[in-house]
């Protein structure tokens, strides 16, 4: 068993939908997609963001582009101009998810 940083095998982009953030994570190759498909569960992502996301995490699969899309509900402090957060639109959350370490 070895540990890898998610950022070694994937990249991505994040943004906002109201008070929910979306994070798309894209594996660099098929091998990487197998790893994220298996290990990057909605539960793992929810746990990773326990200080940021206060709602449910939804996961959607896009094997066609080796990607997973996560919706983090109640994660942006109200969203839009209501939110007082520096990152009110969740632009930095993809990078925050890439911090995760995965054991393979």
């Amino acid at each position: 068993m070895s540990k890898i940083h998610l950022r070694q095998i994937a990249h991505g982009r994040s943004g906002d939908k109201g008070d929910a953030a979306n994070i798309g994570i894209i594996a660099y190759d098929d091998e990487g997609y197998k790893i994220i498909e298996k290990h990057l569960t909605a539960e793992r992502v929810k746990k990773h963001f326990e200080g940021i996301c206060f709602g449910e995490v939804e996961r959607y699969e896009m094997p066609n582009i080796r990607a997973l899309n996560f919706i983090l509900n109640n994660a942006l402090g109200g969203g839009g101009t209501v939110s007082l957060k520096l990152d009110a639109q969740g632009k930095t959350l993809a990078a925050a998810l890439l911090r995760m370490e995965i054991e393979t």
Partner: protein
Amino acid sequence: MKSKIKIASGQGFWGDLIDAPYHQVIKGDIDYLVMDYLAEVTMSIMQKQKSRNPNLGYAIDLIDLMKRLLPITSKKGIKVITNGGGVNPISCADAILDAAMKLDIGKLDVAVVLGDDIKDCLDDLIKKGCDLNNMETGEPIITVKDKLLSANVYFGAFPIVEALKRGADIVIMGRTTDTGLTLAPMIYEFGWKNTDYDLLAAGTVAGHILECGAQSSGGNFLGDWESIPDMAEIGFPIAEAYPNGEVIITKHENTGGRVTFETVAEQLVYEIGDPKEYITPDCVADFSSIKLEEIGKDRVKVYNVIGKPETEFYKVSCSYHDGFSATGSLTYCWPQALTKAKAADKILRKRLENLGLKFDEIRSEFVGYNATHENLAPQMDEDKINEIVLRFSVRAKDRNTINRFGQEIAPLILTGPPSVTGFAGGRPKPKDVIAYWPALIKKTMVEPKVKILELK
């Protein structure tokens, strides 16, 4: 029928690179220039401008831009499609025609699409049975009706198609889906029908790839971003579209940036929900069917897109006033930068409490430490950090409360922890908090109207 058309993205939002559309029309051949100006907050800003001056309420930069573009676009036969009309597309079109008159470019047909702005007919619509309940909370619109600043229906591609059929050289829209701007010329040029769902979905996907400007051609790229060439002169994306729905995403030669599987894939996942249900007024596109293939340098083929019939609803976006907020910041330096910033935060909170001020929310962030990733940020060795910015924000219903907060930032310089600077901008001012009310409306309740204004 043309065998292919080139649609170029010129703006990803109001405030994007001003020269980008100009470069799109001079650095190579294109058939259409599409420019997205509207975000939700933009509509309320424009509504406010219109209430002060009935001739405003659109993307004002568009007029100066069109003065530069028109001599080129009319010579080359490039059509321009934009939602920069905001909440006043007619005044926007008039201003463009005024500018065009002085340019000696000959005949010009400017189309406007009206009917998306339903703010003034809400009572009527509610009477007719549109509840316009909040899609997220289920609350009825009546709870915020008196505070509403804007209410707009998102139209799709078909009103633009009608404008093109009627000979428009420029199409000025109000609220339109970003994707509709790109899909419309494909429907018009290739004769696609409103039941060709796979084709409509293919054009919608192309629109999604173009709608955020350079975000699909190397900008904001989280992969190997340092390897993206010449970001200073980044080329905005171009969709080379074919009648069978295949689209090649590319950019002009001799521009910076890059178009690859990775740069396009990052844009595909941007701000989407369930990839199987990408809903627009024109169709429902299945993003999990899309295939991407690099077929050359800066050329990515997008194909195999599957679509389903559109829903019977338009999305409505309303905005309403919901109090005020303000943000102040102070910079603390080594030694103990974070400890000082945290102490200042504590002092400020105590003073606000002593004043008896009521806030809906108080938030402090430590920029340089954990403002973006919060508890995911690693513990830091404070001795190695040179400075930390305390960013302190408040939100309240009452403007005076926010004003009073604004008077409490500067005093911290002489009455708090040492080696503090960065307070040059004056007291933080109250900003309007604009909240959103997403809703649905039956398509049969509103009708887009196309109007052509001519310069002969």
